[in-house]
């Protein structure tokens, strides 16, 4: 049976905009606006969206690196927003993150061994010798060898550096790993290696991933369920077969058709080219946030009424007026 590991309810993250000579709050960037989603234990949950859609803010808020404006985040049944510092620290052991640019996540003045030692030092009382042993075991797990222990990040290639980041994230044997664009800064052939590694680790260690990316190929390859975000809101959630096979939301449809494919299928539909630009999340359009660019605009209701996430089937929800009742 599947159980929910991460349960996000009605999460809002609004950043105040201050302006003027005497700074005053003149508005809010609604980076994440009323987002609910649940991630099951052992699955790869893909989060897709263009820049500024709030993917990364959502992920950082789940880790409580950003304080939300309102909402609830349950991790393994524990409400992360209600617990104190000590308990948060203990809970955080189980949730780790890998960011896009490995060189920015690795301190250039520390050796790989010391980088991997950091989580142990923060959370466990073990000897230096044991740390070295564990670090070299972790390096082997991610396909590097002991010789990399004493290197600095500048001596590593992009792929190797990302492997070190993955090793560090796995140091405390977490249940949940957030992967924020883990392969976007890598070349294709290296990207394939890292994806193979991530997939294998997930299987052998029984990890749960929240995979954030704008690369739809990666999501389609690895994700079990997918959520599509647009301007701080979830447009659509479903299994990967549902979302990729038969996108319900017009935005998903346009997004999927916009990607130039290496292996186009004869069943691929003609490309939908959206009008205009992505609006600013500081001043999102009224009603449905997508209505200014939508190719399936059905009338005033889109402009005036904000659509709620409607349940289409047990595994599928969509926020669009095309699917009323």
């Amino acid at each position, binding site marked *: 049976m599947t159980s929910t590991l991460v349960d996000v309810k009605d999460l809002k993250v609004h950043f105040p905009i201050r302006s003027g000579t005497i700074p005053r709050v003149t508005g809010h960037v609604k980076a994440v606006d009323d987002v609910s989603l649940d991630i099951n234990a052992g699955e790869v949950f893909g989060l897709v969206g263009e820049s500024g859609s709030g993917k990364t803010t959502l992920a950082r808020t789940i880790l409580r690196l950003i304080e939300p404006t309102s909402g609830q985040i349950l991790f393994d049944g524990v409400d992360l927003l209600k617990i104190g510092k000590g308990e948060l620290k203990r809970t955080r052991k189980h949730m780790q993150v890998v960011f896009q640019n490995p060189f920015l996540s690795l301190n250039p003045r520390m050796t790989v061994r010391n980088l991997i030692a950091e989580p142990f030092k923060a959370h466990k009382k073990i000897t230096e010798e044991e740390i070295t042993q564990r670090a070299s075991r972790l390096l082997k797990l991610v396909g590097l060898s002991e010789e990399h222990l004493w290197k600095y990040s500048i001596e590593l290639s992009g792929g190797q550096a990302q492997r070190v980041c993955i090793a560090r994230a796995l140091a405390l044997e977490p249940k949940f790993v957030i992967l924020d664009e883990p392969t976007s800064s890598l070349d294709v052939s290296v990207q394939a*290696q890292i994806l*193979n590694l991530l997939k294998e680790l997930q299987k052998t260690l029984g990890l749960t991933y929240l995979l954030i990316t704008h690369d739809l190929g*990666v999501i*389609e390859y690895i994700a079990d369920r997918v959520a599509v975000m647009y301007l701080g809101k979830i447009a659509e959630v479903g299994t990967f077969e549902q979302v990729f096979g038969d996108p319900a939301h017009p935005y998903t449809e*346009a997004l999927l058709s916009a990607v*130039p494919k*290496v292996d186009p299928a004869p069943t691929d539909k003609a490309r939908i080219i*959206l009008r205009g*630009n*992505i609006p600013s999340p500081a001043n999102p359009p009224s009603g449905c946030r997508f209505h200014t660019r939508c190719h399936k605009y059905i009338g005033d209701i889109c402009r005036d009424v904000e659509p709620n996430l409607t349940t289409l089937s047990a595994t599928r929800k969509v926020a669009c007026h095309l699917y009323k009742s």
Partner: protein
Amino acid sequence: MPTNPSEVLLSVEDLVVHFHTLDGVVYALNGVGFDIRKGEVLGLVGETGCGKTATALAVLRLLPENAEVISGHAVFEGRDLLTKSTHEIASIRGRKISMIFQDPASSLNPLFRIGTQLIDVLKEYYPNYHEAELIKIAQEKLSIAELPDPESVMRMFPHELSGGMQQRVIMAVALSSSPSLIIADEPTTALDVTIQAQLLALLKKLKEALGLSVLLITHNLGLVRELCDRVAIMYAGSIVEIADVQRIFQNPLHPYTRGLLSSVVSGRLRGQTLQHIPGMVPSLINPPSGCRFNPRCPYVIPVCKDKRPELTEVEPGHLVACYNIPKEAWWRT
């Protein structure tokens, strides 16, 4: 080559470029050669550091000071760009060959309005025109690049435009001299997919309407399949394979091309382990001898380590630089 020479717009031959750095000499380009025909889009594809951009910069004579062109020719409309004087090259660069860079924001000056920057460029190409006429031409160019409301765009500063709009302005600038060749270096990489789709449609339309030739530098193979007529695959400073776009994707022959294509992630490979090329891209300060791909190549034979393979025509229009072309058929279409 079987091409009718009159069709060839730019012909790059045996280009060798070294960079002098503190760490030593970087053997960046190792005999690069290709042709661009009139009205075609040639894709130049390869991974980071393989010399795609260096090739473009060498052709336009924009290489940094630590670069040295050891040998080679870049014949454009019958004249070699590499032996021209600085003055002569200035009359070609920007006028007959324009370049579009990856990051539109860094190609525009943040301190000046779009109109000012555009008119500055136009003054060069239309020296005898009045300001009012130039404004009109500038607006025309902006509307060719499908920018809505060119009049107000002219009054804006670059930061007031989104990335997609900035790139359209860059395209307007690039087109303002009616060039015959555009070198586009990762023109859509910095943009979101839905915006990328808009620009691709525009680029295709302009290419058809104006009969442009385009050298498209990219690592995005999806983009190549969609936009290019022919493709040149580059690895560690050499071109390893050139063919029509259909042929490259259906019957790639060079082991590197095969490796590159099979490592592209797509939903169709779900459940399978992704293939990848073993090893790493070599350092160009100390490149492998012979074929630079030999340490990673599954088809390596002794001669690969001794002598660099030349691009040879294996079927009409399909050139491969390999001593031991894989015999088995390609599995992924």
